[in-house]
């Protein structure tokens, strides 16, 4: 394997019962890049992310074959799956504020990992909330419920929570689906900052978002990779595949 690849996926197949949703896909994610993943609904984007941190195992009837390597290590052979999940930050499409205070929302993961010292937690909570561009709005009411925040704030809270276990990879699954364009732009700014520290996989329905942010873009369709290339190529007039051109330009899909 090459040092430049943070995540390597080889021949990944996933089926729910008799229905196969990923048909043996292979790709690699490079360190400190933003990889955009685009494709219509039902193309397997979310399932793909769930294979990375093995939360797919919580879905009854899901069967995975092929290998996923994070930092060169097969995720199915890692010593601790919880360690693996802490390495990968996940942001779900709909914001999920846990029914805890804002502070506890962010401190949840570190506490689960055994961090108890108040001072360390305080520092970490502030850092993550700052990174998620939420700190200024909530710094005076950290002890109010996270579920009382607005949708956009909750989504940033979710991002702060995903950052709280100091992941090396951040996966965002259509994070802007429930929030307004202004907040979306703010988070996009945040992502540009974060990429210096971590690798980012950005699953998105918004083709333009991938174009704005992603270094490379992968077009996933019906559980297969149609094309994976630098974003300039994907969004140019001549991507390798006709299908990509048509999808990106809104001709189909």
């Amino acid at each position, binding site marked *: 394997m090459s040092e430049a690849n943070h995540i390597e996926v080889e021949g990944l197949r996933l089926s729910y019962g008799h229905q196969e949703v990923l048909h043996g896909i292979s790709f690699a994610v490079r360190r400190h890049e933003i990889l955009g993943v685009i494709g219509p609904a039902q193309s397997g984007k979310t399932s793909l992310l769930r294979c990375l*941190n093995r*939360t797919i195992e*919580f879905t*009854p*009837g899901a069967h995975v074959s092929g290998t996923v390597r994070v930092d060169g290590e097969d995720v199915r052979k890692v010593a601790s799956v*919880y*360690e*693996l*999940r*802490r390495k990968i*930050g*996940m942001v*779900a499409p*709909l914001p*999920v*504020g*846990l*029914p*805890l205070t804002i502070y506890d929302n962010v401190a*949840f*993961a570190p506490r*689960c*990992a055994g961090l108890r010292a108040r001072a360390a937690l305080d520092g970490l909570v502030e850092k993550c909330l700052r990174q998620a561009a939420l700190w200024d709005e909530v710094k005076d009411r950290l002890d109010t*419920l996270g*579920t009382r925040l607005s949708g956009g704030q909750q989504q940033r809270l*979710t991002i702060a*929570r*995903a950052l*709280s*276990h100091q992941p090396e990879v951040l996966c965002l699954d259509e994070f802007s689906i429930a929030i307004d364009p202004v907040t979306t732009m703010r988070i996009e700014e945040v992502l540009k900052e974060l990429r210096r520290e971590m690798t980012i996989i950005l699953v998105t329905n918004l083709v333009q978002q991938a174009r704005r942010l992603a270094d490379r873009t992968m077009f996933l369709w019906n559980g297969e990779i149609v094309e994976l290339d630098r974003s300039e190529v994907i969004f140019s007039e001549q991507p390798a595949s006709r299908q990509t051109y048509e999808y990106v330009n809104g001709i189909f899909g």
Partner: protein
Amino acid sequence: MNTENIPDAATTANRFTETELVRKKYRAESVAKYLFLSMAILMIIPLVSLVSYVVYRAWPSLGLEFILEVPLRGMREGGVWSALVGTVYLVVVALSISAPVGVLAAIYLNEYAKDNWFHRAINLAVINLAGVPSIVHALFGLGAFVYAAKFGYSILSASLTLAIMTMPVVITSTREALNAVPQSFREACWNVGATRWQTIRRIVLPNSISGVLTGVILEVSRTAGETAPIMFTGAVFYKAVERGDFLPYHLTDQCMALSLHLFAISTQVPDVKESLPFATAVVLLLVVLSVNATSIGLRTWLRSRKKW
């Protein structure tokens, strides 16, 4: 009237005229509504008439004295203290067995169990156990606890029998409460590397405890009224008890119970003071209703602290 200048009038008027179809729709609507309403009102009638009739017939005997006094003169007079304490004993012991076992089993089934034949078999067992008639439980308790386990006719045997009877319902109500916690909360926890237990302890349980507790407490009221299972395994018609004694029984003793006492003085003992069975029924009702009220109060209080 010159309608030519206001051409819209006709169409406007037309638009709001009731057609036959609309009238029919309204008729059906009100018929349906009042039919359902009358059925709902019908539900109140039995309760109100039952309670008022029982209280009316019980009136001459009612009072604090009736609760504190033990049965006198071969259960023809006196109060219900020994039976009341016996019922409390049975319920408390039964619940302290079935609540922990039932709740923990429900947590396993709901949070850990994968969908495979083994767990399906457990689910099937729970459902079927809930459907077993109480008299069959009684017979089982007699064979298993009284004879096989050699606990004899005792509070222990009776409570174990009651516990087995209530466990499936505790499991079912607990699972319902756990299910009410959105799945997205669990996924959010798993995504940040929390174990199942951390997820359960920090998120699932704190947010379902109201449902879990009320389910368990409501089981008490069901248990308090059971007759057959305890009659077979540990409740007796009469046992001498001191007036107002809070700890008259040992775990291995037989005891009196309200439900069985009611049966006894209504059908087995001649020349009982007429209001006595009704007063006993009132006490049983009070036990059940106060337990239900506690449960509702607790639920309201816990709901008010709910966080999403």
